[in-house]
């Protein structure tokens, strides 16, 4: 264990931690853009810098390991001033369209500018002027909003391991992009959206069908209904509609999803959803009430059981339904109808 002081507070921590980790463990929050627990620390954005007594410059807390006896200040005047400069520089090359930006309310640049009281573009310098890449069906990329934190690139390389994107050009023009600017659609991108979920600003955004502000949505944690990985999801719900999905943290998916889990949810509100029971009359399926449907089913069940016995029934339960429903389905067949003819598509 190592002992150090952060903002006057004595802290004990393990030796293989970074300053940022030690601070966070002590409940002190430090701003970050490029840091992500799941990724190798990268030190690209420098917003996390702190003051360390006896060290001349301000080191990035996310890449600097703790050392015995360190005295650290995370919000000294010098630190705050340096962060304001970083934010001002970012802002001077950022389209100031928070009013219509979909990320508003969950944008780190917006949050930190508010926190550090950085109002406008004081440098008035040149701004990016790149075309927006909307070639992927599920998300769009606005390079003009990219703050070059490289999170997306590292997520795609280190976690998703697809390696579809990288940094293009040098100096002022550096931005995330596709090889030869060919556009997302033409890369080997698998549309998992893991880069989109990680982007701290509005550069990578899902193409939303419905307009909503992040503060208007309720968040419900649940489990993906597609494959057996069972990824944890957060459904964003506005006015009884699912409007977006974010990956859940922790097991089993650690913040990752695939294209189906991330973007494949619009079926929920599709017009084709069955909204009433249907009963076949004169050869055709017609809308009916639950009462009608149930009465018919019960009559047929009783008739069939009386005439042919319980083993004339067969049921397919569902690998798509919940445990509770599968349990009830087999109970209906075994305890109520009286047959073990229950199976499901485990083999398909």
């Amino acid at each position, binding site marked *: 264990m190592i002992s150090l002081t952060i903002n006057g507070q004595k802290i004990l921590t393990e030796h293989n931690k970074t300053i940022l980790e030690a601070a966070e463990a002590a409940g002190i929050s430090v701003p970050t853009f490029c840091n992500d627990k799941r990724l190798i620390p990268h030190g690209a954005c420098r917003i996390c810098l702190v003051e360390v007594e006896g060290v001349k410059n301000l080191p990035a807390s996310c890449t600097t390991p703790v050392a015995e006896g360190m005295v650290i200040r995370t919000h000294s005047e010098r630190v705050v001033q340096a962060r304001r400069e970083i934010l001002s520089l970012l802002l001077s090359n950022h389209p100031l369209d928070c009013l219509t930006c979909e990320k508003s309310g969950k944008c780190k640049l917006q949050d930190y500018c508010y926190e550090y009281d950085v109002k406008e573009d004081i440098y008035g310098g040149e701004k990016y002027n790149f075309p927006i890449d909307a070639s992927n069906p599920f998300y769009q990329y606005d390079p003009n909003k990219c703050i070059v934190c490289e999170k997306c690139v590292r997520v795609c390389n280190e976690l998703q391991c697809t390696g579809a994107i990288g940094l293009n050009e040098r100096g002022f023009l550096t931005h995330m992009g596709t090889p030869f600017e060919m556009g997302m659609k033409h890369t080997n991108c698998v549309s998992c959206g893991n880069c989109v979920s990680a982007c701290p600003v509005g550069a990578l955004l899902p193409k939303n069908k419905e307009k909503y502000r992040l503060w208007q949505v*309720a968040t419900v944690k649940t489990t993906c209904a597609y494959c057996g990985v069972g990824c944890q999801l957060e459904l964003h719900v506005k006015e009884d509609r699912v409007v977006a999905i974010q990956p859940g943290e922790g097991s*089993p998916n650690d913040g990752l999803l695939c294209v189906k889990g991330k973007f494949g949810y*619009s*079926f929920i509100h599709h017009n084709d959803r069955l909204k009433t029971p249907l009963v076949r009359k004169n050869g055709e*399926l017609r809308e009916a009430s639950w009462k009608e449907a149930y009465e018919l089913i019960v009559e*047929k069940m009783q008739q069939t059981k009386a005439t042919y016995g319980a*083993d004339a029934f067969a*049921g397919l339960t569902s690998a798509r339904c919940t445990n*509770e429903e599968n349990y009830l389905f087999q109970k209906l067949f075994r305890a109520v109808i009286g047959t073990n003819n229950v199976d499901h*598509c485990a083999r398909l």
Partner: protein
Amino acid sequence: MTNSIREIEAADVIFVIGSNTTENHPVIGAKIRQAKLKGAKLIVADPRRIDLAKDADYFLQIKPGTNIALLNGLMHCIIDEGLQDHEYIRTKTENFKALREQLKEYTPEKVAEICGVEPEDIRQAARIYAKGERAGIFYAMGITQHTTGTKGVMAISNLALLCGNVGKTSAGVNPLRGQNNVQGACDMGGLPGDLPGYQKLHSAEVIEKFERAWNVRLSAKPGLTIPEMLDKAEAGLIKFMYIMGENPMVSDPDIQHVQKALEKLDFLIVQDIFLSETAALADVVLPAVSFAEKDGTFTNTERRVQLVRRAIQPIGQAKADWKILMELMNLMGYPNTYHHPEEIMNEISSLTPQYGGISHDRLSLEGIQWPCPTKEHPGTPYLHKDGIARGLGLFVPVEYEASAELPDGDYPLVLTTGRILYHYHTRTMTGRVEGLNQISNEAYVEINPITAEKFGMRNQESIYVISRRGKVTVKVYTTKTVEENVLFMPFHFAEGAANHLTNRAIDNIAKIPELKVCAVRIEKIDDPFKDEKLSFGDL
């Protein structure tokens, strides 16, 4: 899975066989690649040059249906070079001698011939697997959907035991289960011979336990599997079917046969969220709700029971499946009321030892991996930690057998089927997501460019694919992903459905159909002789 998804990153060898992981279990695919980045060795065996083959240290492109030969060949090489885990075999397994005897004839040369790979690659892959400290095997339907599926699973288990990879972290035998809750449906007794928790019907004690709990007399007569149900329905012996959330009219082999069987029924109920191809045949269709409209639990492929939470109101008059089932039970005179799925889970945990300690309350923090016998039990990340469940790990020697239907003069090509990244099962859900359809919206068949040329077919051309059971029209997609004379079709698409062609020959033990191998021929649509050939798909 004997082991957990989290453990993948610490494996030092990963062997993927019969699983196109990056498309079908994408997040597990990503984790396998993460392990590879951290230095794990990767072996991939598959009839298709799947995406993961790029990352593999050894890729074995085997002929469809030859898994067991390959697995036996790998074991032969391991024993030949003395690389097996002698201590583990001596203390934790039995029947090794019989295995060693039986494997003698599976020389790499002979196996290479059967599988269509190089003998040296088999030797190398065997060495890598055997030298792993923590070597995990991952497989899916590419192993099981064969007439020899059960034996394939046994061969995998033999290999894992041989190198002491059962009962430790980051190793194991890891079937990747397809649907979100196929694990749970099995756990809950959605099987003709098992009550919840795999408690066997043939045990009088089990029957008595459930009779007491449910307060009824139960039948101990084993039920029918899906293929048997369909056969009996076609024969007029099954009169009434209730299908909840499944679409056998697209997903099951030999769709013509499925249709005949379902049409023969007196009464068919289908409960689903869309009017699926199967629902269209029903007498009554009951509208169920999607996962976003109900509470409950799913159990994932690593046995993790996780909460599903209601986020929105049911659409229209749709009802949660559990409500419908409960109401029907009540109307049938079985008084049994639950106010919330939580209460159903309490009943499940009282009757299912593996779920004994599971409640919605506990799950609200994090999912729990069964076995979890008590309220205090933390769950089980990997199985067999304290020895194999049945005592000693049993080696069961299995022989390679050819698939039920092999190519011949009339049907000279092999068709194998599977899924793709952008769709799920029969597309009732993904087929209604615009972006997914933009990427992929029609059936196609993968053909090696050389085979395509032999038959005079161009990329993107519509052709007929014909088997003894049916004929479909699909687009050609020329690719070196498949070898010459092997075709691949995704089965998702109702139009041009691969399952019009597939063979319903089944594995005698697990009753799983041989969806991965059947014999077909291909024809150009403008073929002048086409009318003289089998063509009921056109009728």
